[in-house]
């Protein structure tokens, strides 16, 4: 049983263009959702929060998982009063990127490969602590996919490659309306992309995976 916790996608400019979570016990996105329920309008931009009241968010039973960032929080439209949740989420994304970037660079150094090329020349695939395992996949263009799962899952490289090749490339890159500005990063706000990704992750989580 593979337990998938969350997914980050970073582009070449080191910005987080997509984040979603399925199983997370300490989410900064969920914290303020709990606080704001009852009186405030919970629909922000493209993001629809579910009425789940449990503190551990599991989105594999049909509810839509939380996603970040949305256009109201993207760096191009910075609102003067940023909500605490976005700041915390942004900081976390930067921390994650920093850890992965540094690890990738020391691995490249140990393999005496040049870090400036895209596509992960040193071959860093994952690291594990006692509570989670982080899997990393870098496309040749520099787009980075980071997937956190439970510790028992040994390799999600084929999964990440599938996500890149058949979901990201198909639904995001081949969409002519998704403009890639060389100076500014645009977050991914594509319902098809999200739906296909959720279905794929749901399939992965429920299929019996042999430990490789």
């Amino acid at each position, binding site marked *: 049983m593979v337990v998938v916790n969350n997914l980050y996608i970073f582009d070449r400019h080191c910005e987080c263009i997509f984040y979603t979570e399925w199983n997370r016990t300490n989410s900064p996105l969920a914290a303020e959702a709990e606080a704001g329920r009852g009186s405030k309008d919970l629909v922000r931009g493209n993001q629809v929060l579910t009425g789940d009241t449990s503190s551990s968010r599991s989105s594999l039973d049909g509810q839509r998982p939380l996603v970040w960032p949305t256009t109201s929080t993207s760096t191009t439209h910075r609102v003067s009063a940023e909500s605490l949740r976005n700041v915390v989420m942004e900081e976390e994304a930067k921390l994650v990127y920093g*850890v992965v970037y540094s690890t990738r660079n020391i691995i490249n150094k140990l393999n005496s490969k040049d870090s400036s090329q895209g596509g992960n020349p040193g071959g860093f695939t994952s690291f594990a602590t006692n509570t989670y395992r982080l899997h990393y996949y870098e496309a040749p263009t520099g787009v980075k996919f980071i997937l956190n799962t439970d510790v028992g899952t040994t390799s999600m490289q084929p999964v990440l490659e599938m996500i890149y090749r058949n979901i990201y490339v198909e639904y995001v890159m081949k969409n002519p309306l998704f403009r890639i500005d060389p100076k500014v990063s645009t977050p991914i706000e594509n319902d098809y992309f999200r739906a296909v990704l959720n279905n794929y992750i749901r399939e992965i989580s429920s299929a019996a995976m042999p430990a490789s």
Partner: protein
Amino acid sequence: MIHAVFIINRSGGLIFNKNYSNQLAQLSSNEALIFAGTFHGIHALASRISPALKGNATRDLGIQTIDTKNFRMHCFQTPTGIKFIAATDLLLTDLTDALKSVYRLYCDYALKNPFYNLEMPIRSDMFDAMLLKLVQTS
């Protein structure tokens, strides 16, 4: 087959590094120091970004393995904050016992040496010899 061993002290400074095969690039002393400092940092940050912390019940103890296409890195952290790192081939999945033996060698040949300054680089022929024997037998 162990390719290299690194020992990092509590503040993130490198106190020992040795390559035992040609698999890994030979790092200059500056590069090795940078490696140690960076590893010390990411080891700590990895616990911070864990998505599976259940309040105060579970504690994340930092990076334990790093997998790459060609080798695997194992890290064992002692309760006093010293990190023992070994880079091995992909066949070895759990090196905790070997790293604990390295810790025992460190205690015997460095800590019990009255002339050894704590947190300083380890310069002991006996330590090197015993570690080489350990690496060759695992």
